[in-house]
């Protein structure tokens, strides 16, 4: 949102055939995004219909009794698990995140600010399956289990809703902090200066001026974070305890909707009509929840960023001309000042502490994964298969590259064209809906995308029972990842192109170039560094995705040979082997987690270092 809307420069001459073709190409990319979203909703609704039409009868939202044997699908406990974990995450992450943002924006020296934002970006880049593995082994088993034991609570594993909520808190912290930081920065300098000039302390300025001014933006950030938390699959499924009873209390275990779908959907065939429909209906519910969060957040942000005259607070006018404000006794003023100074000092420490707590998990995760994993990475890890001795994950590396490559090969061209449409054909009617839908697409939980890709490419939903499905494949996995990548590419490419000064376009037109020529020869080359950065960041993000792959590419013990083969991937194996008891397999999981973490972080850090700060700012598409 960094560029101001500039009046569109139009080409002087009537468009040629090539121009029109270019327009229709980019417009159809936009239409494709729209139809993709429409198809997703339609397919899910169609598949969930057997459950939706008998919503009451199946007791989906009116019972907590989940017993598919008896045809009872009470899902309230999964809804509760989703809500409870999200609420815990918000309770922890919002104060910490806002505090950290206030510290970074108002207190921190520039160097600390730079370092901390960098660390936060790293935290945001860690794949969710690694959060899950860490949370299972470290947070639950080493942290919560002994704590519960100490307080005599009946939970010996440490798993449960609290563990899931805490790991979610760590995962959404960087989003809340980064977004809140941005809105704090957007508070006009004059506001702060006014407050300080009136003698307010730094804390008073933050509390009474900066935060109230930034409030709508912060609330929007919370909505976005809540949407993310509700849709998170891997980290939650690994630590929530997978219980099938509604239990309350701090040590209670439970289950969430995404975790249920990830664990159960592939156990149903097209013939298990009810169970399948119920699971997909729950996916649809999840989709609706996250969409509401996202729409709400964007509406708030848009409303808050609009320049507007604020009606001042009602002032009571004192009619009496002789009225004088009685001066406070001096000792009272001094006391108030001292108190304010003390509060200021204390709060500065509190804010600093918030920031500290925000980056500590990063080091815990990096440290623990390195400690456990680095020692198990050997050359055979990169050359052997899981059934070889010693076992390796060569095939999963190749599989991951294939899946991400497929996703990129699909998402980059479509995303670029759609972004060109959004940025260069601003006054077309479709622009607004396409942008909106693409932003919404970015908020769709990954597991829902997995369900959709399964219904399109694994066992097509239009197939009659008995028809042979297309099976798990790299195509399906790549398609799912592409849908996840598409909105990120569109967003970052559009932002990058918008940053290209309009004068460049005008100069190009003045030389007689057509719009197509201008876009291809002037705008894209100028925006290219930022676009590449955005694409690489997007690649880093989908490289760690697990949830949709469970339902689409599955896994395999062998090297994938055809794109129609089941395709293994590194994050899939982190998940698969993390839940295995054997020493060898667990070590392989640690090694895989370490390698995955290295790849994702190197991609992230490398891109940022190479591209420079400004380009990254343009390309960031959170």
């Amino acid at each position: 949102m960094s560029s101001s809307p500039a009046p569109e420069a139009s080409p002087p001459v009537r468009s040629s055939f090539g121009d029109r073709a270019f327009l229709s190409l980019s417009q159809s990319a936009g239409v494709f995004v729209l139809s993709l979203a429409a198809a997703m909703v339609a397919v899910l609704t169609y598949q969930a219909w057997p459950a939706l039409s008998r919503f009451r009868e199946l007791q989906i939202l009116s019972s907590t009794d989940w017993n598919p044997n008896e045809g009872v699908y009470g899902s309230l406990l999964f809804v509760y698990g989703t809500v409870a974990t999200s609420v815990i995450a918000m309770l922890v992450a919002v104060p910490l995140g806002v505090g950290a943002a206030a510290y970074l924006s108002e207190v921190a020296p520039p160097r600390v600010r730079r370092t901390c934002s960098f660390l936060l970006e790293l935290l945001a880049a860690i794949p969710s399956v690694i959060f899950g593995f860490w949370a299972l082994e470290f947070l639950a088993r080493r942290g919560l289990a002994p704590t519960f034991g100490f307080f005599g609570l009946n939970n010996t594993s440490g798993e449960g809703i609290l563990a899931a909520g805490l790991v979610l808190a760590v995962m959404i912290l960087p989003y809340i902090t980064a977004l809140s930081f941005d809105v704090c920065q957007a508070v006009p300098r004059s506001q702060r200066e006014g407050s300080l000039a009136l003698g307010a302390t730094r804390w008073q300025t933050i509390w009474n001026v900066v935060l109230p001014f930034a409030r709508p933006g912060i609330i929007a950030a919370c909505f976005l974070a809540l949407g993310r938390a509700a849709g998170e699959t891997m980290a939650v499924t690994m630590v929530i305890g997978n219980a099938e009873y509604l239990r309350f209390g701090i040590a209670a275990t439970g289950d969430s909707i995404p975790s249920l779908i990830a664990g159960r959907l592939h156990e149903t065939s097209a013939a298990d009509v009810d169970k399948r429909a119920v699971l997909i209906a729950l996916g649809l519910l999840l989709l609706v929840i996250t969409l509401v969060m996202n729409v709400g957040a964007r509406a708030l942000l848009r409303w808050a960023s609009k320049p507007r005259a604020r009606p001042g607070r009602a002032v009571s006018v004192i009619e009496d001309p002789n009225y004088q404000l009685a001066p406070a006794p001096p000792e009272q003023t001094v006391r108030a000042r001292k108190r304010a100074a003390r509060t200021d000092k204390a709060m500065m420490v509190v804010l600093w502490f918030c920031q500290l707590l925000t980056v500590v998990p990063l080091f815990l995760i990096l440290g623990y994964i390195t400690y456990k994993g680095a020692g198990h990475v050997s050359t055979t890890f990169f050359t052997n298969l899981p059934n070889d001795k010693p076992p390796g994950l060569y095939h999963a590396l190749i599989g991951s590259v294939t899946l991400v490559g497929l996703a990129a090969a699909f998402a980059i061209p479509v995303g670029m064209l759609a972004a060109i449409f959004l940025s260069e054909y601003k006054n077309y009617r479709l622009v607004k809906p396409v942008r909106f839908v693409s932003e919404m697409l970015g908020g769709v939980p990954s597991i829902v995308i997995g369900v959709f890709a399964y219904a399109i490419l694994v066992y097509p939903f239009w197939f009659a029972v008995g028809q042979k499905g297309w099976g798990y494949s790299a195509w399906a996995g790549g398609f799912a990842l592409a849908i996840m990548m598409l909105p990120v590419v569109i967003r970052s490419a559009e932002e990058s192109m918008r940053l290209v000064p309009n004068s460049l376009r005008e100069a190009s037109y003045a030389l007689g170039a057509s719009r197509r020529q201008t876009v291809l020869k002037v705008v894209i080359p100028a925006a290219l560094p930022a676009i590449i950065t955005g694409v690489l960041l997007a690649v880093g993000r989908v490289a760690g995705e697990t949830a949709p792959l469970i339902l689409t590419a599955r896994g395999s013990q062998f090297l994938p040979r055809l794109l129609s083969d089941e395709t293994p991937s590194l994050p899939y194996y982190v998940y698969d082997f993390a839940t295995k008891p054997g020493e060898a397999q667990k070590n392989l999981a640690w090694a895989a987690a370490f390698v995955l973490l290295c790849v994702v972080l190197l991609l992230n850090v490398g891109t940022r270092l190479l591209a420079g700060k400004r380009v990254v700012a343009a390309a960031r598409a959170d």
Partner: protein
Amino acid sequence: MRRLLVLGSFAALVALVSGCGGKNAAPRISAGGATFVDPLIQKWSGDYKAAKNVEIDYVAKGSGYGISNLTSRNIDFGCSDAPMNAKELAKAKEAGGDVVHVPVAIGAVAVIFNLDGIKDLKLTGEVLADIYLRKITKWNDAKIAALNPGLGLPDKPITPTARSGSSGTSAIFTEYLSKRSPEFAKTPGTSKEPKFPEGVEKKPENNGVAEFVKATSGAVGYVELAFAKSNDIAYATMINKAGKPVKPDPASVTSAVDEAMKVKQDKEPYSLHPLAYSFTDAAGDGSYPIVGASYAMLFKKQPKDKGPVIVEFLKWAMSDGQKSAAELHYAPLPAELAKKAQELLGSVTFE
């Protein structure tokens, strides 16, 4: 330019990966299902690749996964420790015709526990049922203590652990408990996806249960013996139908199999299949009581290209493959059963 480079290298990689299939690549069979047989099938997969250059790509996600993905025909053959019931057979028939079930491995379900240093524990089916019914919730309960005099059981809560999702191991386990406890037979009863009372933890796959019990003091769970052995988790001695304490091992499993095969299988789902047996709670002094078989399931009508490869593999698994069984703590298939199974595989048609 850089973008082109990035795109180009991706395209090259994709081409490389999709191209390395080649003409003389090994045939690959996609399979999946029960985690019960997973250690054995992965061993077979490696051996068979070396011997016959055929890749058996088995992904273990549970018996329910095997049944549903066979029905969706996402995989070429599936494995389940609970033979398909009438409903599942009907669904599968609609999808691809008759399904052939052949036993490929027989193994014990070990009752694993984590009791800080205690290595041996005696349990009966009745006590185990009470634990899973949450009627016994402490390790020092009088009923457990009576079976284990002088063991010094701690005053610790029991965390019973079961499989989440649809599992053949659960079916074997609950079938045994249902036979021993009338109350258990009422609810939850025999099921692949039993509804245990509150307080029973659920973990995915044999691996998940083993991993959880290994990591959690006070936990008890049930997994195929190989998972207990290879992960060094203590498992209980069960008092069998004859009242004798028996440890799970190939000999006690074979004894149970021999006894069970004498019994006519007239109950569903076993009666629906020519070669399915209920091996639980078998008679005989040396029989371990919680025993089950894993069945390979495939459609009777098979495609010309993959069908013969699958049948060849299964025949190999029942003959040469059984040599690996004991080494992974499964019981070898009885010769008679293996012979019948091979004959049954002869009925598979290729078209």
